C-alpha cells in the first residue's frame, strides 16, 4: 500500500518534466569570461592613485587619511577603473551606460532599466555653473559580524538556542565572510568583507508566500507601514542616520526603504523591510558601516556634470516617472532599422532640471571601499515621437583633476 510519503514523492512536479535552458550557448559564452583576479564589489573599481609614491604609502593608512584633513595636504588623485567619462562611447550599442553602470545608486538597479538610445543632454538655467566641494569617506564594516548576526536575530525575534551561526568564506569569488543564522522562524545572512559595509539580509519562512492576487485593494495602510517600520528600526538600534523613506504597498504586503545618510548626504546604502498584513517582518536587508571622513574634494559644477553625461560618462535612467502618460514608457523607445538592416539607436533629448550631490559606494583596487560624491540629476527625456519621461541620471562629481580613468579589463559577473 502506498503511504503518505510515497504519495508526497510522487507529487513532485518535476517528475516527468524536463528542463532545457533557452540559450545555453549564451551561458557558455558568459562562462568564457575569466573570474576577475582583483576583488571588486561592483563592476567597476576605484583605484586610488597617489600624487607621489611616498604619499601612496601613507594614504591607505589611518595616518594618511588624517593627513588629508590638513588644509596643507594635497588631495590624492582618484582613478576610476572604468571607461572615462570623457572618452566613453555614447550609447550606440545595446544598452551601455558610460562609466558607472553598476554602481549602486538610490533608486535601485540600473541594469534592468536601461533604455537603448543615444542621449543628448542639456542643462536648464537652474543648474549652477560654480564648482563646490563634497566630502569623501572611507567605509568599514562591523567589527563584530557574529555579534551583529545575533543582535539581528534578537531584534527580529528568531533566536533559537539550538541553532549556531554558520560561517562560510569567499563565496562568488568575492572575499567575504558569510554568517548565516537559520532557524524555523527565519534566516539571517550577514556578509562581511575585509573592507566596506557589512551587509545583512533577513528572510522569514513566509517571505516566499505570494501576496494575495485576489485582492484588488491594498489591505495595508501607509500609516501602519510607518509605525511597523519605525518600531523595527528602533529595535535594530543601528548607529546610522536614515533619510527619507519610500513606501510600497501591494495587496496584503508592503515594504519600506530608508536611505542611509552620511554627513547629511544621501548615499546608495539603504535599510529596507517588507511586512505582511499583520505587521510581521517578511524580509529585511541593510548595511552596517563606519564612515571615516577623508577630506573635501573639489567638484565640477552641476552644468559641467551634464556635459559629462553627454560624453557618455553618466548613468542611464534608473527610475521612470512617466510624465507623458503610458505612451512615454521606456518600452516605447523603438530603435530604427535602416535600409541596410542595421538597428540605429533613437535620439533621446534630455533636459536636466535639478541636481543634488549623493555619495556612491566604490571600491578601490587595494580593496578599500569609499563613498564618492556623484551628481544625481533629474530631468525630462523626450523621445523622437514626442513622448516624455522623467528620470534620473548620475555622474561622478569629483573634479577631473583628481580623477584618473582606467578601463576595466572585463565585465564582472558577481
Amino acid at each position, binding site marked *: 500500500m502506498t503511504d503518505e510519503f510515497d504519495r*508526497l514523492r510522487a*507529487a513532485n512536479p518535476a517528475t516527468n518534466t524536463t528542463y532545457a535552458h533557452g540559450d545555453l550557448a549564451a551561458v557558455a559564452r558568459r562562462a*568564457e569570461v575569466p573570474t576577475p583576479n582583483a576583488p571588486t564589489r561592483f563592476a567597476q573599481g576605484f583605484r586610488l592613485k597617489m600624487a607621489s609614491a611616498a604619499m601612496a604609502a601613507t594614504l591607505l593608512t589611518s595616518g594618511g587619511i588624517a593627513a588629508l584633513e590638513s588644509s596643507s595636504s594635497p588631495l590624492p588623485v582618484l582613478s576610476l577603473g572604468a571607461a572615462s567619462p570623457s572618452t566613453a562611447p555614447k550609447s550606440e550599442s545595446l544598452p551601455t551606460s558610460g562609466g558607472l553602470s553598476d554602481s549602486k545608486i538610490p533608486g*535601485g538597479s540600473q541594469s534592468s532599466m536601461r533604455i537603448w538610445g543615444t542621449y543628448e543632454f542639456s542643462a536648464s538655467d537652474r543648474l549652477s555653473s560654480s564648482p563646490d566641494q563634497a566630502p569623501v569617506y572611507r567605509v568599514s564594516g562591523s567589527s563584530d559580524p557574529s555579534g551583529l548576526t545575533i543582535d539581528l536575530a534578537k531584534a527580529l525575534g528568531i533566536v533559537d538556542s539550538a541553532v549556531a551561526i554558520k560561517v562560510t568564506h569567499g563565496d562568488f569569488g568575492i572575499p567575504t565572510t558569510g554568517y548565516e543564522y537559520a532557524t*524555523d522562524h527565519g534566516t539571517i545572512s550577514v556578509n562581511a568583507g575585509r573592507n566596506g559595509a557589512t551587509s545583512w539580509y533577513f528572510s522569514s519562512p513566509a517571505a516566499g508566500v505570494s501576496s494575495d492576487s485576489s485582492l484588488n485593494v491594498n489591505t495595508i495602510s501607509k500609516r501602519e507601514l510607518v509605525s511597523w517600520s519605525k518600531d523595527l528600526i528602533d529595535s535594530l538600534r543601528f548607529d546610522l542616520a536614515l533619510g527619507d523613506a519610500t513606501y510600497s504597498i*501591494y495587496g496584503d504586503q508592503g515594504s519600506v526603504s530608508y536611505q542611509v545618510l552620511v554627513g547629511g548626504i544621501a548615499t546608495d546604502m539603504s535599510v529596507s523591510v517588507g511586512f505582511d498584513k499583520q505587521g510581521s517582518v517578511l524580509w529585511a536587508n541593510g548595511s552596517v558601516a563606519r564612515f571615516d571622513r577623508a577630506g573635501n574634494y573639489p567638484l565640477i559644477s552641476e552644468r559641467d556634470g551634464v556635459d559629462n553625461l553627454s560624453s557618455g560618462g553618466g548613468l542611464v535612467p534608473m527610475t521612470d516617472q512617466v510624465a507623458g502618460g503610458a505612451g512615454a514608457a521606456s518600452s516605447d523607445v523603438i530603435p530604427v532599422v535602416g535600409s541596410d538592416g542595421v538597428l540605429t539607436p533613437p535620439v533621446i533629448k534630455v533636459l536636466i532640471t535639478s541636481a543634488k550631490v549623493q555619495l556612491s559606494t566604490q571600491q578601490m583596487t587595494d580593496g578599500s571601499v569609499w563613498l564618492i560624491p556623484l551628481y544625481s540629476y533629474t530631468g525630462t527625456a523626450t523621445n523622437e515621437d514626442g513622448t516624455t519621461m522623467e528620470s534620473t541620471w548620475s555622474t561622478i562629481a569629483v573634479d577631473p583633476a583628481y580623477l584618473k580613468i582606467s578601463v576595466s579589463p572585463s565585465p564582472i559577473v558577481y
Partner: protein
Amino acid sequence: MVPVPVDDFYDFAHTHMPTIANFARRRLYPLNPEELDDIVADVLIVAWRKRDVIPEGAEAPWLIGVTRKVLANARRKKYRRSAYIQSQRAEETHRSAEDRVLKDAAVEAALATLSLGDREILMLHYWDDLTIEQIGTTTGATVNAASVRLSRARKRFREAFAKFEES
C-alpha cells in the same frame, strides 16, 4: 584568457541543470517564471568556475546551496527595485509550482497547512532526493538538527495528510 572547453561545459550543464532547475522552479516567487533561465545560468556559471572545489558526491547540496544564494540575490534586487517602482503594486503574482501542478489533493492540502520551513525540508528530502546529511549541508544546520527538523516535518505532514485523506 583561458578558453573554456565548450563541450565540457555543455556536459557539465546538462548533468546539473535538472537539479538546479527543479529546485529553483519551486522557489522562484516573487521572480517571474521567465527568470528561471537567468537563475539557472547564474548558478551554472558559479558552479563551472568552482567545479574544482565542488565536493565529490555532494554536488546536489552544493548546487542547491548556490541556487539558494542566487535566488536570494535575485529576490533582494527585486525587493529593492520594488520599493522604488510604483507600478510594482499591479504586478502579477505567481503561485509556486507545487501550487499549480500538484494533482494529489490530499498531498497538496497537507503541504498547504505546513510552514514553509517544513515544506522546504520535506521537498529537499522527497523531491530533491537529498539525504539528511545533504540537507544539513544545504541549510547550514547540523546533521542532528536537520534530522530533528525532518522528523518534525514528517510528523506534521503525516497528521495533516491523515486528516485530509479521511475527509
